[in-house]
């Protein structure tokens, strides 16, 4: 009896695994099985593509043969002009999987496939000057035509891949603590929330230098609006906090006031594309205040090309210190280096919204710029996307994730964490897309 039991067990097991494989697990299942519950079908309904064997029938004779042999199952059949394959439109109601099996069995058929669907695995905005933004998508294109500057393929922050997972939220505010923002600029005007001017002590945080406008646009210019450039933070909002004067200068007290203001007025990300050589409690206390309120602080490393990271970027536990890379993922020669450097982002010949104080009514102005300021803006935009996607993350976790998901782009010369590029160039794809467990 034990033998019989085991025999039956085996028979039942065969049935069991046969049954288990039935519902849509096979690649050959018809699309209604593969795509239940409103998920788009994975191939064009009713279509099969036939690849003829090289020593078999010609396309013309195959047409005749198929029409006669599979009468009633094939509605139309034609030779696809680009590939040369035969494209079959099956009669409605035909069991496509069965028809495919029958066709595969024909001697003169090398293979048969469903006409599978695909889609771009990236979110590419429709901006006018997107091809200039090698930082976001670098296909090795000429990104600065006047200088004929060309990038290196894939030396970018993988923004288009990252945007497939998050395009941010208008509820996430990036404070641009800088020279102000050209609030009427065509690519920024719809993104700005009311800010403050700590230089003139009023509520008009209009830019009078241009630096803050360029930085703001890289972080979160209006995106997919068909004009200008794309901002990394896509839907994020911008809070202009003017702490630097028309020459781009300021003092720690004013900057500290701006940091506290931003933290108190809903900003989740504080972009500090500024710095000084001296450590002071004035700046540190303000950064600590904002950090304790849960803000993520992003600061530029400095543009001296020196071995000293400027403050506040040098506050290692409070700020993400950002250096600049170029269109080939090389360290910019002006980018300050030091142990506090966390990551790098593109900061060489970066294109963005511009403002010329001499032409204050020109609000469709764009230009190139250089600096770790611009690199920091990319990181601020990336963090805005991350916060929108994962609102429960702490600022400590955010600092870590930005670093851990960066690409070690100088690994060939300096593998691992180094004082030039920290953990490497940020990567929005790794930052935002899920890690696939094998």
């Amino acid at each position, binding site marked *: *009896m*034990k033998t019989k*039991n*085991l025999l*039956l*067990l085996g028979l*039942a*097991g065969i*049935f*069991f*695994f046969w*049954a*288990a494989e*039935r*519902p*849509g*697990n096979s690649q050959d299942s018809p699309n209604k099985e593969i795509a*239940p*519950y*409103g*998920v788009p079908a994975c191939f064009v309904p009713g279509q099969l593509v036939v690849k003829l064997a090289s020593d078999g029938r010609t396309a013309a004779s195959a047409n005749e043969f198929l029409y006669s042999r599979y009468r009633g199952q094939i509605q139309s059949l034609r030779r696809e002009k680009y590939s040369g394959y035969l494209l079959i439109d099956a009669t409605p109601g035909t069991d496509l999987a069965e028809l495919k099996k029958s066709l595969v069995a024909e001697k003169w058929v090398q293979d048969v496939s469903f006409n599978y669907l695909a889609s771009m695995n990236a979110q590419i905005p429709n901006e006018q000057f997107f091809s200039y933004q090698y930082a976001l998508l670098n296909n090795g294109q000429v990104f600065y035509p006047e200088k004929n500057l060309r990038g290196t393929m894939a030396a970018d922050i993988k923004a288009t891949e990252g945007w497939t*997972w998050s395009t941010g939220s208008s509820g996430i505010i990036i404070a641009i603590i800088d020279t102000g923002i050209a609030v009427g600029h065509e690519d920024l005007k719809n993104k700005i929330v009311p800010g403050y001017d700590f230089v003139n002590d009023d509520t008009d945080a209009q830019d009078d230098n241009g630096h803050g406008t360029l930085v703001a646009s890289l972080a979160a210019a209006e995106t997919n609006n068909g004009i200008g450039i794309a901002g990394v933070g896509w839907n994020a909002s911008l809070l202009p906090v003017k702490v630097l004067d028309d020459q781009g200068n300021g003092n720690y007290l004013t900057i500290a006031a701006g940091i506290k203001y931003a933290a108190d007025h809903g900003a989740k990300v504080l972009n500090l594309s500024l710095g000084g050589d001296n450590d002071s409690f004035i700046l540190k206390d303000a950064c600590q205040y904002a950090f304790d309120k849960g803000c993520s602080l992003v600061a530029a490393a400095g543009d001296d090309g020196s071995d000293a990271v400027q403050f506040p970027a040098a506050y290692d536990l409070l700020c993400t210190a950002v250096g600049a890379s170029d269109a080939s993922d090389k360290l910019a020669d002006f980018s300050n280096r030091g142990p506090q450097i966390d990551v790098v982002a593109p900061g060489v010949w970066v294109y963005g919204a511009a403002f010329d104080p001499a032409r204050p009514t020109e609000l469709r102005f764009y230009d190139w710029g250089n600096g770790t300021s611009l690199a920091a803006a990319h990181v601020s935009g990336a963090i805005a996307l991350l916060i929108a*996607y*994962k609102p*429960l*993350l702490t600022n400590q*976790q955010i600092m*870590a*994730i930005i670093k*851990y*998901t*960066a*690409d*070690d782009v100088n690994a060939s010369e300096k593998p*691992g*964490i180094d004082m030039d590029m920290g*953990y*490497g160039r940020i990567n929005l794809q*790794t930052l*935002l*897309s*899920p*890690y*696939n*467990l*094998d």
Partner: protein
Amino acid sequence: MKNWFLPLVLLSTFISIPAAESTSQPIELTFTPGLEFSYHSIAILCGEQKTANSFNLLSPKLTLQVDISDFITLEVLAGYHFAFAKDPVYFNALPLSLNWDRQKFQGLLLGIALAAEPFAFGDFFMKARGEFVFVLEKDKAWEVTLPLVSGQATGENAFTLITLDVTLHFQGLSGLTFFLGPRLNLLHGKFIAAETVADLQGQQEMSYKQKNLIGPLAGAVLEIGDNWELTFKASMLARTELSLAVVYVF
């Protein structure tokens, strides 16, 4: 699978035979050992976003029916199972998002069932059967490797499944009984993912439950010889459920 399943089958085969001999004891209990294979593909709604997915469960199990009266049968189930979600499950609340793509979990499956046959008229009779199963699964672990740091992710899947069948049986044919009726399914489970990558730690639970409660159930019982019964059941509950059971009747 081999480590758990085969010893369990063999052990149960040996144990069930002496148990069956107890039918001759003064306590008039009848023991019926059996073997059942079932496959469930249940449409589920997963997580707070109620993402549609499909929960697939394969379970070979041993059964032991005890007829505790003329109308009521108690059944104990023990076996093994394999479970997976058909579509990817994303854990996006973790610091580093994780994707389970058809991750298969396995472990012991235990359960109990109670069946009653309250009415009979002519060649027909009614049967109500309720079954509760739960699982003891092994956790899974994976290496997580980022460019400059690495860590570990772990995964768990825990669920309970209650099925209630009310069926009308027709036994007018010799050796063959057909049945038909509604099946109610109550699936409650959760996927748990955790990760530790350098100083980042996180855990996310994602509960899931069946999308549809009730579906049709149909099947047949075939008597083979004097002692064997073969039962086949099929149910459509947005997706498919199939089971094949073999019992030995003393």
